[in-house]
């Protein structure tokens, strides 16, 4: 695809006006055009939530799975055809609540996937309940007295779980988001990008203004190969204290690179082979 328009479908986005998902959609399309991601080399997977609708608005082959289950589907795709760029769109409730286990294990295996978390601190498609990234005390339909739980930290979780590329971006900064999506995809191994995404309709705390006032970019002095430093930076959150950028990036063979069966070709390059069992049968006689 050489033009953004070629990536458009005839489906009009169903998100609320001003939704952070529009920015993520734009950044992704920019990145796709820049890098030539098309239907011969790229596949998208999403879970269920506001984020999942994105698949209807990008003319790239995709799999709309179940709530929380985008990562295992993406893993299966990558193992079957590791030459594809495999993107996993997930929500914070979807990927950190329902599917948290899959994220942890995909990180530790270092599958060559690009995981983009649409992190709005809420279950918005179900009209605004507290999600795993909502702050303590947060009032929502499911927590009218204030959220009794403390939030999960997606960046720290991904680093601790073994992801080899971990970044955080603020959705509205489309050029930066485009750049990070490209870098995440170019990274060989598990890339997790936590995208801070305002929800105008239901989240009155994590607004554009909040993120504009409180985020800052990690400087050139940040050393992304130092896990301890990355982890320490990941703990920062608060007034003018939300770091953005690449926290952690190290070179390590991906799961797929390490698998002998995938050295020469993909699993699907040859048609399934009707195998001769003569030798195997001998083991049972």
């Amino acid at each position, binding site marked *: 695809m050489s033009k953004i328009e070629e990536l458009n479908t005839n489906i009009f986005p169903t998100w609320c006006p001003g939704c952070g998902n529009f920015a993520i959609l734009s950044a992704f399309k920019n990145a796709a055009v820049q890098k030539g991601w098309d239907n011969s080399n790229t596949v998208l997977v999403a879970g269920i939530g506001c984020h999942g609708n994105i698949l209807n608005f990008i003319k790239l082959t995709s799999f709309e799975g179940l709530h929380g*289950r985008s990562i295992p589907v993406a893993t299966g795709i990558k193992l079957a055809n590791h030459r594809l760029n495999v993107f996993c769109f997930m929500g914070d409730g979807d990927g950190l609540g329902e599917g948290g286990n899959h994220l942890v294990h995909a990180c530790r295996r270092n599958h060559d996937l690009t995981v983009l978390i649409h992190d709005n601190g809420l279950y918005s498609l179900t009209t605004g309940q507290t999600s795993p990234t909502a702050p303590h005390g947060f009032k929502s339909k499911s927590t009218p007295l204030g959220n009794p739980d403390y939030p999960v930290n997606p960046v720290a979780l991904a680093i601790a779980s073994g992801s080899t590329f971990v970044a955080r971006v603020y959705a509205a900064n489309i050029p930066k988001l485009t750049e990070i999506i490209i870098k995440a995809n170019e990274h060989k191994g598990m890339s997790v990008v936590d995208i801070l995404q305002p929800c105008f309709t239901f989240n009155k705390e994590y607004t554009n203004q909040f993120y504009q006032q409180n985020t800052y970019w990690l400087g050139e002095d940040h050393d992304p190969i130092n896990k301890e430093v990355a982890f320490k930076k990941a703990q920062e959150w608060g007034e003018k204290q939300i770091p953005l950028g690449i926290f952690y990036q190290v070179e390590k063979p991906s799961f797929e690179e390490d698998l002998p069966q995938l050295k020469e070709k993909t699993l699907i390059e040859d048609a399934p082979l009707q195998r001769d069992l003569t030798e195997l049968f001998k083991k049972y006689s």
Partner: protein
Amino acid sequence: MENSQIYSIKIGGQAGQGVKSAGLMLSKFAARSGFNIFNYTEYPSLIRGGHNVMQINLSAEEVSAPSKRDDLLVALNQETADKHLPELTEAAEILFDQDSGFDTGKVSSQIRLFAVPLSRLADEAGGNDLLVNSVALGAVVALWDGDLGILHDLLAAEYADKGQQLMDENKKAAQLGYDFIKENFADKLKQVFRVGEKGATKMVLNGNDAVALGAIAAGLQFAAIYPMSPASGILHTLALHQEQLGYVYKQPEDEISAINMAIGASFAGARSMTSTSGGGFSLMVEGYGLAGMTETPLVIVDGMRPGPATGLATWSGQGDLLFALRAHQGDFPRIVLAAGDVKEAFDLTMEAFNMADRYQTPVVLLIDKNICEDEQSYPLFDVSPYSIERGKLTFSTQDNYHRYSSSEDGISLRAVPGSGNFFIANSYAHTEEGFTTEEGNVTQEQMKKIMAKLETCRRESMKAPQLFGPPEADLTFVSWGSNKGSIQQAIKKYPNVNFLHLIWMNPFPAEAVKEALEKARYVVDVECNFSGQLAALIREKTGIDILDKMLKYDGRPFYPEEIEDKIREVMKQ
């Protein structure tokens, strides 16, 4: 001796003593000596301690069931001798460790006792505790006048990768056991093993082996399987051969991941499967419907054990039939098959892959634990009649491609990602292109389309049930799963009894079943579950209510003896 005579040998010991491997070797020995084999294993869910037994049933003719009686008991410990004494036939034999302190006082005088210094001879052979098994095997071979050379060959093959010393020690142990019997009991030997014609090479394998081998034969490319008894044997075999044969087995973090990974790989074009037991299948239920809705081919094998919850982890059950037929919200086309023995498990696994591809939907294969883990002997399977059928599938760019386009048979052309075709494989209600939709008429049309596939399958793939025995009989058994072997064996002696064995559960051969049952004068349903799930299905599909049900839900199999008791009871009426 009559050719149809079945000999039963039971080997027992505590978990960790190697009962299973000794039993397997003895059954391979018997198969190489010309016999047919049916093994039956009982063990608790423990790694050490606990009581393990394996029964090897052998006959010059086909043998397909466990037996309630034993002709030879090989007691590797005291508990085995105590526990299984009541099962012994009148002139049975017990081989036990001379030094085990086994109290022979309570053994009937007709039983022949063979006290062998198993541990002492194992010490002499090298000292390793597990050598006791090889001593015992050598002794059994001598006792029933077998060819020690065959046992030596089997030991050589078994220990080929484990070092010369271990191989030599085991051979020596077998020799010592063999010599001890020959020297001390020369007048008491029974000529069993020498009489069989050796015939063609036979395999001794169980249902887990058969599923894995069937998948390999059918061109498996990807499997994601989380361990669970009694189906873990499938993954063990698949994991072992993956590098050499070029497919991928992946151990996932849970069964939810297993089924979603397999769906992802299948969506990308790979022949994919997963397997589990009922508890794991419970976790897979949302993925089951996902494969149905996205029209992704998938083979799911459920190795059944008694439930609910943890149930009996290492025992057999047939309680997942209605679960596999009903699991998941809403309707979607599901093909559900049940294997009756190891060979059927092999054939149906291969067929399941073709049907998953052809109908682009999940295929569940049910096998109960008694098939998963009990070996039977067969001539080498002939896979040449099989051919891989992938159905409507393209890897190239199509003009104006619609993934879910309407078609009379319900099957649309499936493309894979990377083929240049844009589409969404969508779990949400969707249009022909795969876009999410809320439109009532589109939703309705797509539902009709996917359900049409089941009709196509009924028309083009479904097979009629098998009727064993005479076409008309005074008594007809209806059953499924591993009960097949016991019923088949039991009805051989009764010319007025037949048996309807069901494999296709969905689509269901309602007409054929109805016809067979309407002809029957008296019907007995045989199942290993509490509620008679097959009987319920038959009633739903044919309106026929089977009143006499033999139901068992204690994890144990139906023995041919119990089936015969039932025949006699019914015939009296």
